[in-house]
């Protein structure tokens, strides 16, 4: 049983909580392999999928997870522009309060909005990504993908590359990977790194070549041009030179090492076109599609554990 009733910040989970989620994800993975990929365990439960920020991948992943558990899921989407005023968030919360729901899944473009909402709502909440703050379910599915390949975590080396500054995925991943005993480095440029990153206990590199031979997991962040308020990174050419995974670099990677990416991949930016089109055995290293699939199992596990908690 989980020690928390919400998942807002990945750091709220204990190591045991993470292990329970991983174990349950295995169970749900089996369900996903069936012809009839659905179990009636959450019949009668209502989940509201509140997306204040456009997102298809995460929203659909949660929706599938809920449906495969036989819960009723209602999508509430609202464009950020109509939610600009702070009052609207409070008003929306009041509306939700009057609906009878069992679980809220919230995505918002501003950091901390999920924490803010949780102060006013007594329902369990899962953070589906808030601004540049956190994306805990992505971190859990990333961890699960690593677990499926390596069996354990302790001592694995992970290199996270790219735009750490604007990435909620990076923030959650770093916290979770460190918690589970992995050795984390970041490969980036100063203008793509948050202030005081060294407090997280990660090593910092400037070029992918510094880590490529030794890393067990190469985690490539999406270069989020839409989140860059300031265009300080010089060019794609510069990015390719220092931070892109091309075939030459892929071939230098250790046996059994993995390449991960939260998707969608910017072909020709984080991962070269030729690597994405590979059909050799090297392609097995690239776990992008497996991550998506694992996302459903992990989210099923999480929803199940939260909704069956006393």
């Amino acid at each position, binding site marked *: 049983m989980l020690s928390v009733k919400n998942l807002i910040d990945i750091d709220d989970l204990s190591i045991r909580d993470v292990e329970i989620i991983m174990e349950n994800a295995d169970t749900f993975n089996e369900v996903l392999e069936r012809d009839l990929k659905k179990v009636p365990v959450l019949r009668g439960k209502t989940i509201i999928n509140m997306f204040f920020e456009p997102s298809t991948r995460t929203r659909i992943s949660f929706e599938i997870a809920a449906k495969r558990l036989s819960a009723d899921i209602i999508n509430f989407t609202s464009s950020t522009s109509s939610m600009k005023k*702070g009052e609207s968030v*409070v008003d929306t919360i009041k509306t939700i309060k009057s609906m009878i729901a069992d679980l809220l899944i919230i995505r918002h473009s501003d*950091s*901390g909005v999920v*924490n803010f909402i949780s102060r006013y709502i007594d329902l369990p909440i899962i953070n589906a990504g808030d*601004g540049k703050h956190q994306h805990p379910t992505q971190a859990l599915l990333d961890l699960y993908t690593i677990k499926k390949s390596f069996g354990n975590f302790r001592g694995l080396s992970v290199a996270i590359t790219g735009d750490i500054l604007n990435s*909620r995925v990076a923030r959650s991943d770093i916290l979770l990977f460190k918690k589970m005993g992995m050795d984390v480095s970041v490969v980036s440029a100063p203008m793509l790194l948050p*202030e005081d990153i060294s407090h997280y206990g990660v090593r910092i590199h400037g070029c992918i070549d510094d880590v490529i031979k030794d890393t067990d997991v190469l985690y490539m962040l999406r270069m989020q041009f839409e989140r860059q*308020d300031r265009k300080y990174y010089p060019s794609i050419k510069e990015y390719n030179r220092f931070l892109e995974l091309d075939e030459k670099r892929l071939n230098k990677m250790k046996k059994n090492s993995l390449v991960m990416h939260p998707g969608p991949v910017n072909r020709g930016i984080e991962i070269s076109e030729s690597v994405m089109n590979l059909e050799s055995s090297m392609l097995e290293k690239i776990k992008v599609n497996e991550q998506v699939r694992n996302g459903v199992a992990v989210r099923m596990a999480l929803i199940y554990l939260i909704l069956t908690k006393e």
Partner: protein
Amino acid sequence: MGLTFDSVNTLPRDTELIIKNARIIDPVQGKDVKEDILIRDGVIQKIGKLKTEGMAESLQQGIGDNKKSSHFAGKELLKPLISENKNFIKLEAEGLIVCPSFLDLHVHLREPGNEDEEDIMSGIQAAIHGGVSGLCCMPNTVPPADNECYLKYICSVAKEQDFNIFPVASMTKKLEGTEITDFGILKENGAIALSDDGCCVQDSRLMYEIMKYAAQFDLLLILHEEDYSFSRFGLMHEGFYSSKLGLDGISSLSEILMVQRDIELAKRTKAKIHFTHISAKESVELIKNAKDDGIAVTCDVTPHHLSFDDSELESYDALFKVNPPLRSSADREALEKGVLEDVIDIIASDHAPHLEEEKNTTIKNAASGVTGLETIFAASFTRLCCKSNFSLNKLIDILSVRPRKILGLNLPSIKPGEKAEITIIEQDRRKLINSDFFSSKSINSAFMNKELQGFISGTINGRKIRINS
């Protein structure tokens, strides 16, 4: 005559008010003595050991006997006794401290434009509650105070209320940082200083011209320092917590660079400049060096920057969104040290009232600022005198005397012939600040739900008197 707690009473003419057994701290005269004070018609008449024995027999009831008495049953210290013929009031102040009332150099009264947050009248109530008898109101109202009409209005209300409000006019039109205002006319109409508070002139050449022109009229410039290229999109101090919380940061360089620029400009132009609400440790260092070099520079810090650091934002509580932002614990410590070492001259509240819905929202949508007029003493005393080893006498100097010095006003003193601007302090009193505490229209205090020590028991401002329960 009814005298009520927790609101401002105006005494009838010829009423004699005697404060008995008070410890009088008067930094200007260098006095710290236990004496009585006699006040009539808002003016101090006598100081010394005053005889009240004969009068005492005619004193029959305290205001504690009125209907609200049960609320104040435990409050025995400042017990007003009113004589039968109602023209004599005795305040027993044994164990309390009496000092010249404070001057808050940085207040937003919100009138005109945002009277739902605060107005001049409610601002005066809040000031008196906080032991403040004079305040500078900032020009970023709607419309802004960039012309003399506004100044005339403020001055007329202040006069009518017999309360010292010193309006600060803007130094650029509409605070846009592009065109200079009519410094000469503004000064003739009551502007005590100039400021674009809330905004900062980015154009260095324009700032240079402003300083030269202000120097001609000997006008003080109150400077809010912010380099927009560092603060744009920013929601909190850039550092470990902004990284952790995923909130865009405002580097302390935003302030440091402008402080540095303006010290250089002041050196060249001989303008008198005052940096308001400084927040970064490097700013303290720069100001210290400038003072050592003999440049006419002063500065203030707010009680909230002295009390809190950026870790407060961890709960995403937008109450702690202020501009400049609460900075790191190292910055906070440097500010405290700056006050201790007289690099920071004074404490000003940056009283910024906001509506509930502007603060009770997400960090991104929330307005910046907290109220502070009513807690300026309690917050400063708690931080500096209780938690650090700071003398009360010096704190009174910082809150009462030095702001007036900076503004070139008469220095306040408790002596016969002076207008009674007296604040009575109970330094051992502790209170949990809640929404009932405030007289301001807004309650966005950074000290909400916090316990503070050292409260104002009463304020006498001319014929106005407020006794706090």
